[in-house]
């Protein structure tokens, strides 16, 4: 079995937002519907105040509440595939936003209308790329929900080439946000492979999932300052 997980080390993250930029470029950002965000907030009081950075994307839960909601109303637009990646099928999505309502992490992003990256200046050549040249997960449209795919367009290449073991190791088979981190605060790979970088990282440092009280069993782990909560 392959269980793809991501570890985000908040002890290392310095809030540079390289992961956010990489995601926006790699996944054809829809303005207003980001797949990866940086949340920063201050903790402590002067003179001991400091900023904490939390980068968030889809948690690709093992027991995804978004999928439960979508299935409950008979739409079945959300699937969890063989590698544990939760994907939205834009052709099936009816834009009801039930998934957005039930996700404890606020991940699914509803796009009311597609707007330009530079309003009033027309589409950039990048935005003007026809759908036929884009991966299905990048064929953005209005009135559907979209979210992080763990860069499925890259992972499926590994599956097609029979090189699942190189996911998280080879740049072509690793999500872009994890590749660009200058302080190596992000690790991605197969948790069921004890030799994978992600398994080794989790063996070294104590990591936890966010909002465990919802019981959705996220596949994104965080190394928190101060340990578990």
């Amino acid at each position, binding site marked *: 079995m392959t269980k793809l997980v991501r570890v985000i080390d908040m002890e290392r993250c310095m809030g540079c937002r390289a992961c956010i930029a990489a995601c926006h470029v790699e996944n054809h950002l829809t303005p207003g519907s980001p797949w990866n965000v940086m*949340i920063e907030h201050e903790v402590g009081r002067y003179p001991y105040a400091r900023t904490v950075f939390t980068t968030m994307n889809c948690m690709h839960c093992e027991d995804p509440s978004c999928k*439960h*909601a979508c299935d409950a109303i008979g739409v079945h637009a959300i699937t969890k595939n063989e590698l544990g990646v939760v994907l939205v099928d834009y052709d099936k999505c*009816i834009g009801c936003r*039930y998934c957005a309502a039930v996700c404890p992490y*606020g991940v699914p992003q509803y796009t009311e209308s597609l707007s330009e990256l530079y309003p009033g200046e027309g589409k950039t050549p990048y935005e003007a790329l026809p759908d036929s040249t884009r991966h299905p997960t990048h064929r953005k449209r209005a009135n559907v929900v979209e979210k992080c795919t763990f860069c499925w367009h890259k992972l499926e290449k590994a599956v097609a080439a029979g090189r699942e073991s190189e996911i998280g190791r080879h740049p072509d088979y690793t999500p872009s946000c994890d590749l660009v981190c200058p302080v190596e605060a992000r690790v991605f790979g197969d948790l069921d492979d004890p030799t994978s970088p992600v398994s080794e990282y989790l063996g070294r440092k104590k990591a936890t999932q966010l909002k*465990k*009280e919802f*019981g959705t069993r996220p596949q994104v782990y965080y190394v928190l300052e101060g340990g578990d909560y």
Partner: protein
Amino acid sequence: MTTRLARLAFALCMAVSAAALGADSKPGLKGIGDRIRAGQAEVGTDYSMDAKRGRFHIIHSKELGMRCAACHQGKTYVDDYISVRREGPRKGPGRYINNSCTGCHAKGGPATRFYGTAGR
């Protein structure tokens, strides 16, 4: 001895009233849920978040009688730092917190299950 008896009687009273309350409220919620799922309740067919026409709000506010403030936290966002939509547009009656959903929508609850059970 008298104190112990009094304590026992009090505990018994509390247990009986809790059981009676549970017996009253649980089947009620479950009954409404069953009726909705069986298509016997007039909740419409609009699967949207529209506050007036959408099933979501009709079920929760009309059928179940929940007030807006039971879920929505006013005009601003709650202090939930771990939400991708935290920085999103501030529309409608404000951000809701999913913790209020788990009472019914967690495993073993009376409503459609969306959430599991907390575990390590």
